[in-house]
């Protein structure tokens, strides 16, 4: 049997490829393999292509009208080139062979490399047989089976109508939905060749109530991956009830008095504080920048022995669930902290190369304009042994943080979080609503003060913005007690 002769650089302009223009399938193997070989011939240590096609639509009902319904179509690719531990990333909208080749040439040029001379052999890059996660769970039909524009319009208007019936003192109400359908392909010079389809959807309410000079604004959002029927099965009556009740209570809330308090943080979105204050510090990106106090603490106690935490991409239909990460690696379940001991970091390819921590299927990115980085997926604190009532009963005077707002973590680990819905705890009972509270602290301190966890683990959908853009994540926890934390207020 004769071996196929190696490709010579000068032959590349004469090659014709017939990659399917509107689908990422096996037909992309030949052009991507050639380009990867060309990159290796130029002297790059590693090359990766990321191809993406997005069909996104958002729809919003404001009061009783559909105020926007906006599709967004996007295609693009990114090429990442490594030379030693340095890398560069070039993105383009042009998915033709010549467009991808131009992007590769630019990336190589940035790294000080050039295409080889006309008579050079191009190494063969033997890509694996396409690992096609898009063939699982009827993903090919997800886009067609998700809600039509008519259905979006009908559901959101009905939801807003329900909200009006349940809430009092309404000034404005919004119901908003989006569907993000994404097809992606990864091909890399180590042979990685994988494809996936994702369907991410989210819907929620924003309610503004007003009476006299008092105002309250409550938001709630739920999310799903992999369920085309998500919108049509949304229990908006339940969410309308919850949002209305919260807005009604917060309308007459007093400002919180600043000081140090014991607090109980609610489950579900309460987990945002762990995500921000600790989760980000366990990403290898932070180790590379030397901005995490935990960088040399693997195997050491960094939290109260009550605390165990996970990051994973596997929970069915959770907002951060992925079959493969954006570097083509299957998702995993990563134990972060076990009984207070730091067990693992969250790592992408570059992070693994630069820090030595193994990849965890956590290389994620917003889209083709971003290089992947180590990012969280579904991140949560494991349930404990207490009941929620026992947490409240342990506090004479403190604050119940029922609904967390957003927050941030500084370069040195200090964090702050707004609390959208809070209540005063007096002698183990909730007494009055409070507004204007901000939780302030440092991860290394607070992690040691999470002394009680209840049994009611709950997850919530969220959006995480960081170095590789905005990605869909889940945050979660059971009800937790923090022995003492600074609460900013008036």
């Amino acid at each position, binding site marked *: 049997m004769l071996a196929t002769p190696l490709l010579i650089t000068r032959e590349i302009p004469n090659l014709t490829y017939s990659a399917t223009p509107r689908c990422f399938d096996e037909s992309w193997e030949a052009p991507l393999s050639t380009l990867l070989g060309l990159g290796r011939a130029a002297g790059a240590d590693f090359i990766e292509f990321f191809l993406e096609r997005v069909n996104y639509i958002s729809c919003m009902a404001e009061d009783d009208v559909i105020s926007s319904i906006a599709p967004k179509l996007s295609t693009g690719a990114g090429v990442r080139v490594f030379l030693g531990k340095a890398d560069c990333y070039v993105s383009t909208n042009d998915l033709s062979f010549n467009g991808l080749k131009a992007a590769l040439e630019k990336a190589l040029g*940035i790294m000080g490399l050039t295409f080889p001379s006309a008579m050079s052999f191009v190494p063969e890059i033997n890509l694996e047989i396409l690992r096609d996660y898009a063939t699982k769970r009827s993903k090919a039909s997800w886009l067609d089976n998700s809600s039509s524009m008519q259905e979006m319009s009908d559901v959101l208007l009905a939801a807003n109508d329900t909200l009006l019936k349940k809430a009092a003192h309404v000034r404005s109400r919004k119901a908003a939905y989006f569907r993000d359908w994404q097809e992606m392909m990864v091909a890399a010079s180590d042979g990685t060749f994988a494809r996936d389809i994702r369907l991410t959807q989210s819907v929620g309410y924003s309610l503004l109530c007003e009476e006299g000079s008092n105002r309250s604004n409550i938001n709630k959002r739920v999310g799903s991956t992999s369920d085309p029927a998500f919108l049509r099965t949304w229990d908006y009556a339940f969410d309308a009830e919850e949002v209305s009740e919260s807005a009604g209570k917060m309308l007459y809330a007093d400002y919180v008095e600043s000081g140090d308090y014991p607090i109980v943080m609610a489950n579900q979105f309460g987990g945002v504080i762990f995500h921000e204050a600790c989760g980000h510090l366990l990403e290898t990106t932070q180790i590379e920048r*030397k901005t995490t106090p935990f960088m040399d603490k693997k195997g050491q106690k960094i939290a109260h022995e009550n605390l165990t935490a996970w990051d994973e991409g596997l929970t069915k239909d959770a907002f951060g669930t992925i079959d493969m990460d954006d570097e083509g690696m299957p998702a995993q379940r990563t134990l972060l902290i076990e009984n207070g001991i730091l067990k693992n970091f969250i790592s992408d390819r570059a992070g693994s190369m630069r820090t030595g921590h193994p990849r965890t299927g956590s290389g994620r990115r917003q889209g083709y304009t971003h290089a992947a980085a180590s990012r969280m997926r579904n991140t949560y604190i494991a349930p404990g042994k207490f009941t929620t009532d026992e947490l409240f009963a342990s506090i004479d005077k403190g604050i119940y943080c029922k609904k967390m707002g957003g927050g941030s973590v500084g370069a040195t680990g200090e964090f702050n979080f*707004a609390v959208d819905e809070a209540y005063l705890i007096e002698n183990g009972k909730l007494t009055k609503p409070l507004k204007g509270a901000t939780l302030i602290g440092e991860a290394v301190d607070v992690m040691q003060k999470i002394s009680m966890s209840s049994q009611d683990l709950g997850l919530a959908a969220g959006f995480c913005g960081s170095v590789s853009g905005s990605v869909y994540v889940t945050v979660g926890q059971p009800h937790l007690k923090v022995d003492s934390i600074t609460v900013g207020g008036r």
Partner: protein
Amino acid sequence: MSKIQTIAQDAKNAAAKLGIQKFDIYGSTVDETSVQVDSGEPQQMKASQRSGVTVRVWNGGTVGVTSTTDVDPVGLELALKTAFEASAFGATENVPDFSPEAMATIEDHKASAPTTSTVEKLLSTLVSAEKALLESHAAITAIPYNGLAERALERFYINSNGATRHESHAVASVYLYTKTEQENRKPRSAGAFRVGYGVDELDIKACVKEAADKTISHLDYEKIQTGKYRVVFSPEAILGLVGAFSNLFNAQSILDNQSLSTAESLGETIASPLLSLSDDALHPENIGAETFDGEGTPTRCIPLITNGVLTSFIHSAGTAKRMNTTPTGNASMGAKVGVSRNFLHLFAGEPATEIYSLETAENVILVDELSALHAGVQSLQGSFSLPFDGWLVNKGVRTSIDSATIAGDIREVLKAIIFVEPETHFTGSGVAPYVWVEGLSVTGG
């Protein structure tokens, strides 16, 4: 034929094919290169060339919108077709129209010619800056957040009535954020940034010096007592705070009941008479100024607050029509036409009766930078609770403050202004002076 002309012609052809009579397109192309370094070595280099357009299609009494990055003839046709489909669900009331000023003459404005620096130049410039900053003080052990970028932007607006707008400009930027390590002391961080028309115009030495000076000034820090303080906001801090509550001036927010103002608020006193504020897209210090908005309306200077009185709102064509006024060049194309500020210019209004100085004031807090504006601001309620970097100042002596937050209500803050310094300073989002405010709540960490 230029790329913009090609897109315009392709769109006309596709619209004709689909039987679409009325449409407009706003779009942009961006060519960007950026570098980051770590300890003298390249960390990550990025380059991107990307295009995107938003098309609106009128279908009888409704409008449909679609965005796409696919600007070839096939992509544009698909976008127009999808927008036409979406128009079936568009609102039937207050339907937007072309801006009445989409074809108005635009005066010449200084635009920067795109420049292209080599990656080697970007890297060597940033490596030198990193080295200088690391050498400025022994406690500065890393510059974990740094970047140098050069960006060329082309933007355009066309509509089926024949309006054609097109402009391009270039911007370069650098940022440097330090991290310190000292025995038995918390790590501290501070930074600075600069923007210019090109890398050669960036004052990188000044950026390094500012980052170093700020970092050094935060090395010796102390906790602060919780209480009420007289507060001085830096230009960046006051613009950040006012910008977070820009629904006060935003006509779309007002019409959507998502504002602290109402349509009747014009003429009301909402701030101290010492304060004036305008949105001035063409301000000479606005690097990357845009001469038209997403609907093709020329941008301009809009007085928002004059001597404490709410003077104007910012508008799109649609909000202007509903409020019986003229558009102001603040429309942004998206899922729905939005209204957004361009470049804030905050300055002294009525003359001050009392002059304050950090050299003589006692026990005042100088807020240098507010953090977490996305999280700590309740923009529909007026309240905020925000962490900040700053100093306690006593007769000119500054002591860095350990982690703390500042809280208040924007409407009370604007009225509690006791002094607006005369000298304005450029920040990324506008120009402003230092602004003194009486009696704000500060919580020590």
